[in-house]
């Protein structure tokens, strides 16, 4: 019989945080480490705007998530496991979850903003430090919590692992649909469903003119209705917007989200976002491409890369065109 890592490999399970990183490689890397003391972290920080799939999974399928964590602990021969839990989820059901987990798994309340959910920030936070990203490499699977090999997986990833282990996994994925969606909620569908099918099957094709944001209400890409015949290769989150929405307000909301949520450590992300906010306020985008360039190419962690996506896609697909039409 295949061991769990082989099973995961066969199913080609990709990280459900949106990273789309092959899960079996992370597991192997930790398992094959020379260091004997290891840790497992279930990342339940879910910090994206209007995205609630991990919340839904923890509320409805916590047994499977915990089973996934325990499978990881066993496979890694880990010393212990942690659930790093979104602060408001922690307030709502953290205590209950802790009781359910037993002693081997510790539930920890998330500190800091959006960046606090990045895997190396999670490790810093659990160690009691300022939740800030570390320089990678080394990756957590080699040098993680307390400098020891650490597996960091998303809630949904660990849920899938449990399902795979039981032979019940059918390639399903959780999709969070919010914003101006007529029928908001979290839905389960095959992972390769197209955005259009997803909206159709959940009765979420709006009657008004719309566009969507795919991959998170902060760092997701803006897509026009003509572009949605594709699968989701990032976070399982779709936000629907009425096309009449004040797009400058929307951009300010994103800018605020990232300004609040980043760690302010590296120049391009800290200053680039500050100037992007200024450019939105002044509706002057002459220098914005350069901000996008340094954020995408030279940020210290993925946040700077992700943060560019909504602005760039909204500007290019909608705002610049609208402005052209006005002139």
């Amino acid at each position, binding site marked *: 019989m295949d061991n769990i890592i082989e099973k995961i490999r066969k199913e080609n399970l990709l990280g459900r945080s949106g990273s789309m990183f092959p899960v079996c490689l992370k597991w192997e890397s930790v398992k094959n480490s020379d260091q004997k003391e290891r840790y497992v972290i279930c990342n339940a920080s879910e910090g994206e705007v209007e995205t609630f799939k991990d919340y839904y999974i923890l509320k409805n399928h916590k047994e499977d998530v915990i089973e996934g964590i325990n499978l990881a602990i066993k496979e890694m021969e880990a010393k212990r496991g942690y659930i790093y839990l979104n602060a408001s989820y922690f307030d709502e059901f953290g205590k209950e979850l802790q009781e359910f987990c037993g002693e081997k798994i510790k539930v920890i309340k998330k500190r800091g903003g959006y960046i606090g959910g990045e895997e190396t920030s999670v490790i810093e936070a659990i160690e009691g430090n*300022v939740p800030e990203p570390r320089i990678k490499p080394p990756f957590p699977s080699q040098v993680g919590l307390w400098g020891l090999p650490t597996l960091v997986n998303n809630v949904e990833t660990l849920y899938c692992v449990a399902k795979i282990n039981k032979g019940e996994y059918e390639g399903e994925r959780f999709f969070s649909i919010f914003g101006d969606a007529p029928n908001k909620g979290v839905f389960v569908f095959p992972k390769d469903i197209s955005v259009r099918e997803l909206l159709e099957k959940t009765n979420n094709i709006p009657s008004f003119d719309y566009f969507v944001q795919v991959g998170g209400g902060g760092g997701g890409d803006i897509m026009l209705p003509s572009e949605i015949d594709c699968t989701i290769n990032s976070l399982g989150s779709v936000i629907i917007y009425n096309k009449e929405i004040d797009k400058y307000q929307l951009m300010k909301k994103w800018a605020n989200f990232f300004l609040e949520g980043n760690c302010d450590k*590296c*120049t391009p992300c800290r200053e680039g976002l500050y100037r992007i906010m200024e450019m939105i306020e002044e509706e002057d985008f002459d220098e914005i491409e350069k901000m996008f360039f340094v954020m995408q190419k*030279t940020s210290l962690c993925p946040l700077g890369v992700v943060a560019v996506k909504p602005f760039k896609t909204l500007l290019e697909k909608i705002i610049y065109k609208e402005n052209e039409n006005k002139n």
Partner: protein
Amino acid sequence: MKIKINGKEVKVKEGETILEVAKRNDLHIPTLCFHSDVKISASCRICIVSANGNLVTACSTKVCEGMEVITNSLEIDKARKTNLELLFSQHQEECYDCIWNLNCKMLDLAKEFDARINIFEDRKSSYPIYHFGSSLEFDSSKCIDCRNCIDICKKQGVEFLDLQENGNLMETVPSEKENRDCVYCGQCIVHCPAGSFEAVGEFEKTKKPLKEKNKTLIFQIAPAVRATIGEEFGLPYGFPSMEKLVTCLKEIGGDKVFDVSIGADFTTVEESKELLERVEENRLPMLTSCCPAWVKFIEFYYPEFIPNLTTVKSPHIILGGLVKKHLAQKIGVLESEVTVISVMPCVAKKEEIEREQIKIGNLKPVDYVMTTREVARFFKNKKIDFKNAKNSPADNPFGDPSSSGVSYGTSGGVMSSAFFNISGEEAEFKEERKGLKVAKVNYNGNELRLAVVHGLGNAKKVLEELKEDPLKYHYVEAMACYGGCIGGGGQSVPMNEEIRKKRKEGLCLSGEDKKVKKAKDNPIINSTYEDFLKDEEVIKEICHTSYKKKEKSFIRKTNQKGENEN
């Protein structure tokens, strides 16, 4: 292991960063936040290069087999230039009043990459200035958020500089915690690439003492300054410049120029006496006290060690006292008509001269402290040609120190002077760990364990050891700054391990030609004890002081106009 840089194959060792490899191969990669004394933060994103097609920071990226690195391309230039423009967008320029004196990495980089330094309005132009005692200022409008200061402050074991959330931004601020205070070592000054930290009064207040007419103006030069000030004028690191400095100080109005190394000889003699007394009376360990940042560190963080600090005053305070109380009479001027300016490698000395406990009655032994940087700036403003200045000896009677006195400028100098003075022997030290060397010596049949430590973080570890085992060391010399005063917070920038090493060599050279080696053999010491330091009362007044537990000091905050904000 091999990699390719710009198409050329080079040998590398595992674990090396791209920046290290480039330096070894004389390839230029621009850096800004990188400093060999602090941990790599990779925050400024200037040392961007391409590795296997991705832009990465050279300072933090380790090489791997077959890696292809490109250090120059249009894309790399664009990244560096834009990040530089963003750094300038937060940094309020005040180039005329900056410790980097236009010799600044940021400006160099701006030229190298044609950065438009004013493309954005300065984000921090209304940010406050924080004032730390009489020693230090932090102008947060210049801060570029590299956090080197926080790291070095932490490394010093002080942890006074901290990150605090301000709206959406994490910013560097002085800690509000009651159990954290600045000790004025000034290491933040010399590790900030943006000139956000400076000494109080640097450089606005340096002219004042020189305008006081009808006064006898005495300059006294600290040991370490002679091996560093030349740097400011294009002389090699460590170039012994005492005699040039004397000439130039005379040129700007100094009536007499003395050598604080003689003050050091007095300190040595007094400290040797105290050591022997303490050995006799079992009042060990004894801790040195000539470093004011170390003294403040004890008074604030480890007050339980106050009784262990030697009561001997620091060299320039003793010398200032002798000048005002003894020499003034001899040359026929009133003590109130003498102005003593100490030329110091240190910003904590600015706070030290304000201490009540060092006064002689109501008299301040030293009126002003000017740092190496301030004096250099003054010469530059006065268009004084330091580099080509002729050599003049320091003035008598306080111009000819022992070689021991000169060695006070570097870590280990105080300790070896004192031990040499009492035993006539050189103690053999072994490096125990980074920043700490230890010697076991025999004195009159007793084993004495001597410890020399530099860097406050290292000194903190020694104090912790002494808490566990109070007689682990019997006599400890501690200097707050790395390498001792040659690495002081008042010294020229840039500063790093390599530079400190050269300064130390230069200082040793400066001491070599001294006729007298031992402090107590110095004729001026003996004649001063015979003429003036005759009874215990006078010795106590001139040479000894006391210490007191310190509470957290008030951190004044002003706006850019200098108006109080708290």
